[in-house]
């Protein structure tokens, strides 16, 4: 059996190899992330059958839990790891041609560090380890946001950094509290001991941890960095930030709330928080005229929807939420990637400058359209099954409050549809300046086509993923089996 | 027997219509202390017109006129004249209401083709006026159909034989009054003579017709007169089992119309619509409500 540690070790090692490789051969540098992520992807796929049978627990350094640091590769973690490698692979293919100027070596290095951090977060079973990987993820993303070194990039980067540092500080305080109370950092161990402590004492550490992770996962009102950072980063990085980074943050929140604390009284509060995030995100996006900001706010909205779905904590809704998460990674990635080249061509981020792009860049526009339709939840794209599962799971709970929240979800979908349809109209039906028809480079087109195929395939045959997601959702919800499999 | 009726009733209608036209001119003249033309003058005119040459403006000019007259002729097959009602089995009041559309529509298409400003004005007024009286008229007709619980006009007539004239039976009084109030408009006589208005818009839709066309148009006018009166008599005054009595009833209604025509000046089209949509419509509406309330 392959060792899941390689999922973290290989990209991490290769990340620091990048400068060396670069000094050996300039041309090879760009292909390092592609190779590393391809490796990760294959590894993830090979791990699937084993993980579906039993979660793999790796004890680093040979200490048995609760001592030492362990990796927990359950279906959920593997789902995320696979998603990260897949999205990372596609984006790195896209970057082959997209990233040409500037400190290319550092870009690739940081890019791989970011993905290493993300993979680490989803695989680790130790709270402090989670914090460390989280910091790797955050720091590399601060730097990548500022990649262009222009006014907007630097400004958003420093703002992101300030908020992120405050957030991770809060997370660390929370971890400190937890350690002070339980004397352990192993999540399974804490989860097991949680019932022995009075609930009210756990409140403050939980809030601090949720707030700290919430900054990265863009829960309202902690998400103010997101629109700036996503809109000023290079589009490939926006795609990763939107498709991976905030999802990983959300994963961490869910892990902490469900598995570590597992106190169901507070779930409804998170559902409300999710709806609030959703509504505010969609409404802000509705008012935007800058395409990347619009997409960024739309990410906030989607995160809200996923949070709502997870917070309902039934197998159906969590499966739906994860489906929506996968869909968001693919579609938002696709949207940012296609928008990236359209912006590159038109030289402006205003939606009005994209008028008539459908004629100038037909394939890129098609990619944008598919992404938008999928995100809105139109069949036969991947957004529809997710939305279907979330709504059906929520209605199945049969509570009036939740029914009303579902109404709000549907309402916000209408708002979301409105602003996406507006852009699609601009792409295809408004007359732009009569520039030459010129496609995006082959690598970028390959990346976009791959994502489009994934989206359509998931939309047409959702069952393909549903079973896996279902076991991932029980991984998230079933606290006892998590504890059991780690502590044996 | 049947075939004779089929041929006989349109001819009779035409004859009575033309007779009414002549009579109208005569009576008007007498009211105004003139001698007036002979009663058969319109018939003579029609025969004369058929021999005259005329200008045609195109295919639709011909088709529209033919369509208009043919439609009106078909209505006469559905309207009982006394007991003569050859096609009463093929449809009832609803068919008549719809057949009544063909006349104005054909006329409108025909004179529309001529591109004469007077014709355009006339047509516009004709359609508007029809719209005006159709509102109370439909209410009246619906009240009748609801009250007698049938849409067949022959049944309405035969039921009146038992109950008496619908105009004077209890729930239909209001409808009867409303019908009486809009009758001049339906017949197109003076206070509502906005369509043809010879002095104002050179007879409106008729302005471009000459020769055989004018003959057809006159016949269409005569038929319209006949249909309007006959419908009123059938629906409100009990029809008649005997054609002669039916004709006498028609004559009475006709004279009523002529007297109104002689006394009133012409309204403007918007005044006409406003009038028609106010009191007659309100009364007709009240009548329908009354029928609905008492009927059930």
């Amino acid at each position, binding site marked *: 059996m392959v060792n899941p540690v390689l999922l973290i070790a290989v990209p991490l090692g290769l990340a620091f190899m990048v400068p060396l490789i670069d000094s050996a051969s300039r041309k090879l540098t760009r292909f390092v992330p592609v190779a590393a992520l391809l490796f990760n992807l294959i590894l993830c796929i090979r791990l699937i059958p084993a993980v579906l049978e039993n979660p793999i627990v790796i004890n680093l350094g040979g200490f048995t839990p609760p001592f030492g640091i362990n990796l927990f590769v359950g279906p959920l973690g593997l789902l995320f790891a696979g998603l990260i490698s897949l999205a990372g692979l596609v984006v790195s293919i896209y970057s082959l041609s997209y990233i040409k100027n500037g400190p290319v070596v550092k870009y690739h290095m940081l890019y791989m560090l970011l993905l290493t951090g993300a993979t680490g977060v989803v695989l680790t079973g130790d709270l402090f380890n989670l914090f460390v990987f989280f910091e790797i993820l955050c*720091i590399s993303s*601060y730097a990548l946001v500022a990649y262009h070194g222009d006014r907007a990039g*630097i400004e958003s980067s*420093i703002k992101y950094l*300030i908020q992120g540092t405050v957030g991770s*500080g809060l997370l660390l305080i929370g971890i*400190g509290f937890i350690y002070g109370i339980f004397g352990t950092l192993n999540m399974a161990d804490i989860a097991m001991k949680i019932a022995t402590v009075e609930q009210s004492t756990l409140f403050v550490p939980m809030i601090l941890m949720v707030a700290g992770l919430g900054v990265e996962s863009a829960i309202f009102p902690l998400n103010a960095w997101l629109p700036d950072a996503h809109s*000023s980063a290079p589009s490939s990085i926006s795609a990763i930030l939107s498709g991976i980074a905030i999802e990983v943050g959300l994963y961490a929140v869910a892990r902490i709330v469900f598995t570590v604390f597992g106190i169901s009284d507070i779930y409804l509060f998170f559902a409300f928080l999710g709806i609030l995030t959703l509504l505010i995100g969609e409404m802000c996006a509705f008012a935007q005229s800058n395409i990347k900001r619009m997409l960024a706010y739309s990410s906030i909205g989607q995160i809200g929807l996923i949070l709502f779905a997870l917070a309902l904590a039934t197998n159906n809704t969590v499966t739906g939420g994860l489906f929506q998460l996968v869909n968001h990674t693919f579609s938002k990635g696709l949207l940012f990637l296609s928008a990236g080249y359209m912006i590159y061509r038109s030289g402006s981020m205003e939606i009005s400058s994209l008028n008539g792009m459908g004629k100038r860049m037909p394939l890129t526009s098609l990619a944008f359209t598919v992404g938008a339709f999928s995100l809105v939840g139109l069949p036969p794209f991947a957004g529809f099954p997710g939305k279907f599962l979330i709504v059906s799971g929520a209605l199945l709970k049969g509570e009036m409050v939740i029914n009303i929240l579902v109404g709000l979800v549907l309402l916000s979908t209408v708002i979301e549809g409105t602003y996406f349809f507006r852009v699609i109209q601009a792409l295809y039906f408004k007359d732009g300046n009569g520039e030459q028809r010129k496609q995006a480079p082959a690598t970028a087109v390959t990346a976009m086509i791959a994502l489009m195929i994934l989206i359509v395939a998931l939309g047409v045959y959702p069952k393909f993923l549903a079973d896996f997601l279902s076991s991932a959702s029980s991984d998230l919800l079933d606290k006892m089996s998590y504890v059991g499999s780690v502590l044996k | 027997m049947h075939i004779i009726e089929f041929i006989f009733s349109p001819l009779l209608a035409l004859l009575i219509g033309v007779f009414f036209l002549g009579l109208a001119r005569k009576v008007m003249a007498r009211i105004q202390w003139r001698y007036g033309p002979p009663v058969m003058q319109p018939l003579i005119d029609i025969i004369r017109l058929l021999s005259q040459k005329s200008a045609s403006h195109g295919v639709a000019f011909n088709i529209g006129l033919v369509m208009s007259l043919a439609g009106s002729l078909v209505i006469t097959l559905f309207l009982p004249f006394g007991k003569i009602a050859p096609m009463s089995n093929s449809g009832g009041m609803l068919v008549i209401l719809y057949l009544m559309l063909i006349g104005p529509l054909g006329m409108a298409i025909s004179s529309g083709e001529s591109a004469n400003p007077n014709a355009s004005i006339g047509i516009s007024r004709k359609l508007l006026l029809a719209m005006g009286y159709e509102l109370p008229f439909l209410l009246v007709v619906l009240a009748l159909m609801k009250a007698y619980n049938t849409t067949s006009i022959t049944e309405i007539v035969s039921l009146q034989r038992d109950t008496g004239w619908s105009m004077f039976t209890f729930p239909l009084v209001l409808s009867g009054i409303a019908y009486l109030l809009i009758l001049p408009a339906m017949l197109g006589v003076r206070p509502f003579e906005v369509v043809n208005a010879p002095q104002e818009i050179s007879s409106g839709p008729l302005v471009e017709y000459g020769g055989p066309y004018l003959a057809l148009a006159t016949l269409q006018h005569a038929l319209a007169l006949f249909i309007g009166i006959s419908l009123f008599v059938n629906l409100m005054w009990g029809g008649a089992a005997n054609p002669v009595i039916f004709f006498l009833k028609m004559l009475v209604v006709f004279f009523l119309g002529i007297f109104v025509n002689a006394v009133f000046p012409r309204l403007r089209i918007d005044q006409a619509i406003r009038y028609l949509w106010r009191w007659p419509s309100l009364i007709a509406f009240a009548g329908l409500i009354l029928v609905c309330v008492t009927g059930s």
Partner: protein
Amino acid sequence: MSFLQNNIYYIGAFGLIMIGLLTVLVKHNLIKVIIGLSIMDTGINLFLIAIGYLRNGTAPIFSSPEVESILMVDPVPQALVLTAIVIGVAVLALALSLAIRLYKHFGTLDLHKIKELKW
């Protein structure tokens, strides 16, 4: 008095955290904000150390057999703090380098004036 004595490290730690947070909140000079972040980091580190600290405890090294593990300070927080310090330094370095670039672009470090990205 004993409360103060027992919890002096915690009070100090949270005092530092609050000071740092307050600096971040109210100061609008970027350098001061970064200093605030740094102070907050220090406070957090102190807090972590305080969790594992035992009054009169010995170093967590089994140097001689008579040292009882009961009297050792907890080694885990110290390991954590080492890592946290490294991370803090990295963030600080990045923040300062960004501040330099920011000054080049905007000619000011006043965060009230650096509001091009909003809404």
